[in-house]
């Protein structure tokens, strides 16, 4: 194929080439390596490079991995639903009811990012712990007789911590989508007989759908693969698939199995994302940007 490029195309390629190169080296190459690894076998310190599907057989066949993947997905879906449901009112309030100093509000939403992710997770440990802030407060108020234990070192703690950590990522895309809605459309809906509730479901929500889908994907995809939060606050009960992948690459010294698990969870997440995307398109109707 002869490569004929217009000057504009050439200019475009030149412009993106540093980024493209970076993406190829840092993203595509590692991905390819992981995919390749998943078809090899680890023999103690050596790698057997004959192609095999054994790793996938293990990854898909052994109950431990299925349980971990299912749990990861479950936690991630709960986190996503909770985050998006909680983010929507915040974004709605920001977009429709904050008249002055919107920038300040947006700025405040990003405040949690000022500390490291690790530190924030640790803070949740301090809040949720056996002798933590929450338990001592409730004990002192006389609302409980002994410290609550179901709030730390289990899946609940993972959900809570992740939902807090990802809230701004959900608020911002929804806020942008709401900001883009032409206010006269809402007046038109009212003019045509809709009260506030019907108007919300017939106009506001369908038009905010692109933002909701974006928020859902932004939260869903990384949380499936999160391993810091489950490790710190999840206990044994809150371990997720990413922790197992980490173990395979590290302590267990079985990189090919780890790679197969990684590829498996990646494909699962991709499939779910596609479903969410298509569902959002249906719900949002024929919105053209």
């Amino acid at each position, binding site marked *: 194929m002869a490569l004929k490029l217009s000057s504009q195309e050439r200019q475009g390629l030149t412009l993106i080439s540093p980024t493209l190169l970076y993406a190829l080296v840092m993203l595509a190459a590692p991905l390819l390596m992981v995919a390749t690894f998943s078809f090899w076998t680890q023999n103690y310190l050596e790698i057997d490079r004959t192609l095999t599907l054994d790793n996938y057989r293990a990854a898909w066949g052994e109950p431990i991995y299925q349980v971990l993947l299912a749990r990861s997905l479950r936690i991630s879906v709960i986190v996503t639903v909770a985050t998006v449901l909680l983010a929507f009112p915040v974004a709605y309030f920001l977009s429709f009811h904050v008249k002055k100093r919107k920038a300040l509000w947006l700025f405040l939403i990003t405040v949690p990012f000022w500390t490291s992710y690790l530190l924030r997770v640790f803070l949740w440990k301090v809040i949720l712990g056996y002798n933590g802030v929450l338990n001592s407060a409730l004990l002192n108020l006389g609302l409980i007789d002994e410290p609550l234990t179901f709030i730390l070192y289990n899946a609940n703690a993972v959900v809570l911590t992740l939902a807090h950590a990802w809230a701004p990522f959900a608020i911002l895309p929804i806020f942008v989508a709401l900001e883009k809605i*032409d206010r*006269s*459309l809402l*007046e*038109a*809906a*009212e*003019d*045509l*007989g*809709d*009260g506030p509730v*019907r108007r919300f479901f*017939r*106009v506001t929500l*369908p*038009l905010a759908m692109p933002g909701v889908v974006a928020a859902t994907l932004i939260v869903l995809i990384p949380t499936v693969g999160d391993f810091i939060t489950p490790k710190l606050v999840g206990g044994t009960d809150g371990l997720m698939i990413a922790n197992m992948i980490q173990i395979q690459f590290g302590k267990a010294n079985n990189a090919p199995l780890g790679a197969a698990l990684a590829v498996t969870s990646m494909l699962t997440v991709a499939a779910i994302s596609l479903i969410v995307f298509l569902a959002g398109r249906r719900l*949002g*109707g*024929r*919105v*053209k940007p």
Partner: protein
Amino acid sequence: MTARPIIELRNLSKSFGAVQALRGIDATIREGEFFSLLGPSGCGKTTLLRMIAGFEAPSGGSIVIDGKPMDGIPANHRPTNMVFQSYAIFPHLSVAGNVGYGLKRKKLSRAEIAAEVEAALEKVDLAGYGSRAAHELSGGQRQRVALARALVMRPKVVLLDEPLSALDKKLREQMQVELRALQQSLGITFILVTHDQEEALIMSDRIAVMFDGQIAQMASPEELYRTPRTRRVASFIGVMNFLPARMKGESPEGIEIDIPALGSARIPRDRVPEGLRPERIESIGIRPEMLTILFDEANSAEREAEGQVVANSYYGDMTYYDVRLAGQEAQVTISMRNTAGRSVARPGTTVRVGWGAESVVLFD
């Protein structure tokens, strides 16, 4: 017209913080009337329309629509429907979805809705466009969809907020005629907000000219053009030549006035606006087409003055002349229909200007 009133505005006012957007608005709009709110931007005309629609609450006064006071009644319970300036076509719905939007609330079957929608689309010349997506429409088509969406609700009053301002000149002129014809055939009251005086004159039965949150004059297009009550209204509607003038004397038949630039004239009583005190007359107005340049020696007019052409603008069918009147600083614009065999007078030409007392408008 003696139709019953459909909208009554009583001493209506609106302030946004310290800014008084509207004050002392009194108006009665009759059933079946094409009523225009005309004024420059910021005069409060859109605010007034939005208050009638129910999007803004009045700060004082009352709105009565079809005999019912509208205090506290939200837009979705008012018998009005609006065509928005941006058209506000729902981008996630088809044309039929847009037009049928308001019908979903009424207890109609699917087939009934479809029939109503198709009938409404037919009225605006968009039959068969129901399945089109909103983004496939041109500006003119969007405007028609917005209109169909309002009409299908069978409102008592259709409110139009500068509906034609986004269209190009040719389409706008076509839509002015179509909209007027549609309104007359349906017999529904239309209230149009516009800053385009020509548009208001072409389409309306009556026009309220608004300045600074108040109605300066409310009258039929013809009355408004022929007898504007203030200099401001006069200069907003069409072109008006203003010349200084003084009252010379008063008699039972009329008022004698002296116009230094043109001469003197007697203005009959019925041309003297109510409330104008003759001794306070400071100027007169006369429209460009009410002045004539007497090209031919044989031509004559009721009254004549001498002048010199300063400039001309040729429009094809018409020529506008700027003429300085002899011995005066005063300059007037005169429009003359071009005729066969007469060439346009060049600047510098001395001409005789003909005028008549019956076309003089008095201002204080």
